[in-house]
């Protein structure tokens, strides 16, 4: 992989995705030792710039950078600069003046990471831009799938929920299609409109319709706080058509994988017994998250340092 930035999975090749997953496997090792650190990015500066609330993704990236011995700096939505009305570009210019090596950005406006990547010399890692992409999440999802299923070519993955507005779904769709998997999406007509077919996926309107085909069932969180009026009638109706409970799990394939990007609305998308059950690999997703993010930082930064004049030893 020879890129400055990781903005999304839409343009990544099969080789690049494979390289990232293979590298991430090596990094899992680091988190299992007593000394969970390698000196590879010693002295580099990684800024996490989270304009949307998120604890787990931010922590995961922060930990990944620290385990590579990089210095980390955190900017969040509530920081005073944004409150005072500073534009994104101006904030970025200020950060640039401090000579960072990489910025990990999560922002509610799609295209923000692309805007920064065009203007500045440091690496930009997209941690979620609006409804567009969330590449590191999809990569950790694919690593988890690969661990259990092997080669993803020819496998069938079902994504259930508000797919249209989910950057997790979108990145997964791009990545999985590149790796040769078949993707089915299921959700209410407002959340899984026919236009999803533009992404090369099959659209269904009940979770029952995916159970006998899916090797993986990925449940998405119903973001109640973001729903516009008319998107969904009630949580009850949603659960009846799309919730994954034990009864449905029994009708799925015996070795199906149950995944969720978190946090889970227990009882809405997924019954607690399913979330905690044998087929669920949700906690593995979290572990793989740190490894994937370490791999991304290593692949983007572990080469020529910016600006410096290191003479060869």
């Amino acid at each position, binding site marked *: 992989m020879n890129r400055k930035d990781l903005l999304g999975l839409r343009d990544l090749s099969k080789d690049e995705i494979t390289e990232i997953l293979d590298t991430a496997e090596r990094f899992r090792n*680091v988190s299992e030792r007593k000394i969970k650190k390698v000196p590879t990015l010693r002295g580099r500066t990684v800024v996490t710039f989270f304009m949307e609330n998120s604890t787990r993704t931010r922590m995961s990236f922060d930990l990944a950078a620290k385990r590579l011995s990089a210095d980390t700096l955190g900017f969040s939505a509530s920081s005073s600069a944004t409150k005072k009305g500073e534009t994104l570009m101006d904030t970025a210019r200020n950060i640039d003046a401090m000579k960072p090596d990489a910025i990990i950005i999560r922002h509610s406006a799609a295209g923000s990471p692309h805007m920064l990547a065009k203007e500045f010399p440091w690496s930009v890692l997209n941690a979620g831009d609006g409804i567009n992409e969330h590449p590191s999440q999809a990569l950790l999802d694919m690593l988890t799938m690969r661990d259990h299923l092997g080669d993803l070519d020819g496998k069938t993955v079902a994504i259930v929920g508000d797919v249209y507005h989910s950057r997790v779904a979108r990145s997964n769709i791009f990545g999985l299609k590149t790796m040769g998997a078949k993707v089915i999406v299921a959700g209410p007509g407002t959340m899984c409109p026919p236009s999803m077919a533009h992404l090369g996926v099959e659209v269904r309107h009940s979770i029952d319709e995916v159970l006998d085909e899916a090797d993986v069932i990925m449940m998405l969180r119903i973001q109640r706080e973001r729903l516009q009026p008319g998107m969904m009638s009630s949580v009850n109706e949603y659960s009846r058509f799309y919730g994954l409970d034990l009864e449905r799990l029994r009708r799925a394939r015996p070795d199906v994988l149950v995944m969720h990007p978190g946090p889970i609305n227990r009882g809405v998308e997924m019954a607690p017994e399913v979330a905690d059950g044998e087929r669920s690999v949700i906690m593995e997703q979290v572990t793989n998250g740190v490894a994937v993010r370490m791999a991304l930082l290593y692949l983007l930064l572990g080469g020529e340092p910016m600006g410096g004049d290191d003479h060869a030893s």
Partner: protein
Amino acid sequence: MTRTTGMNGVEVGRTLDRLATQMIEQLGVPTDYSLVGIVTGGRPIAERLANRIEASTGVRPATGTVDITLYRDDLYTGLEKPVLGETKLPFKLTGQDIVLVDDVLFTGRTVRAALDVLNDYGRPRSVKLAVLVDRGHRELPIAADFAGRTILTEKGDKVEVVLADDESGTDKVVVHPGGGQ
């Protein structure tokens, strides 16, 4: 054009025999120490030494590997990013006597990095170094405890160790003169 300071399969085999003998003499019972091959060149050497020690004493020392890619001090000099190998240490490090094994000892930086890796896994009681070939030009104060063959090279030369998977006698060590990669 290769120099005559290379080695052929027979010579490689004999050198490994001698190394194994030295290690048996100096290190004692094989259960007391472990061989850790430095990825990639040291891994097959460690295997072959372990085989020979087992053949001689009936006891096989534990083996593992360390990959030093993440600990290199030259990652930033524009080298093509190397593929990460596997570090596998299936035994407790603290209190152990370790023998690091590599194919070629050159500047010593690889061994320095390997020591750092071991350090992050635990605190060995002692670390010794066994190499098939010592080609000189040390840049750090590092020496081999068990050196197979010492050869003279120019700093710009490239020393290539080729080991067949099955000790079939097609092993060799080749010295390529510098400037002609």
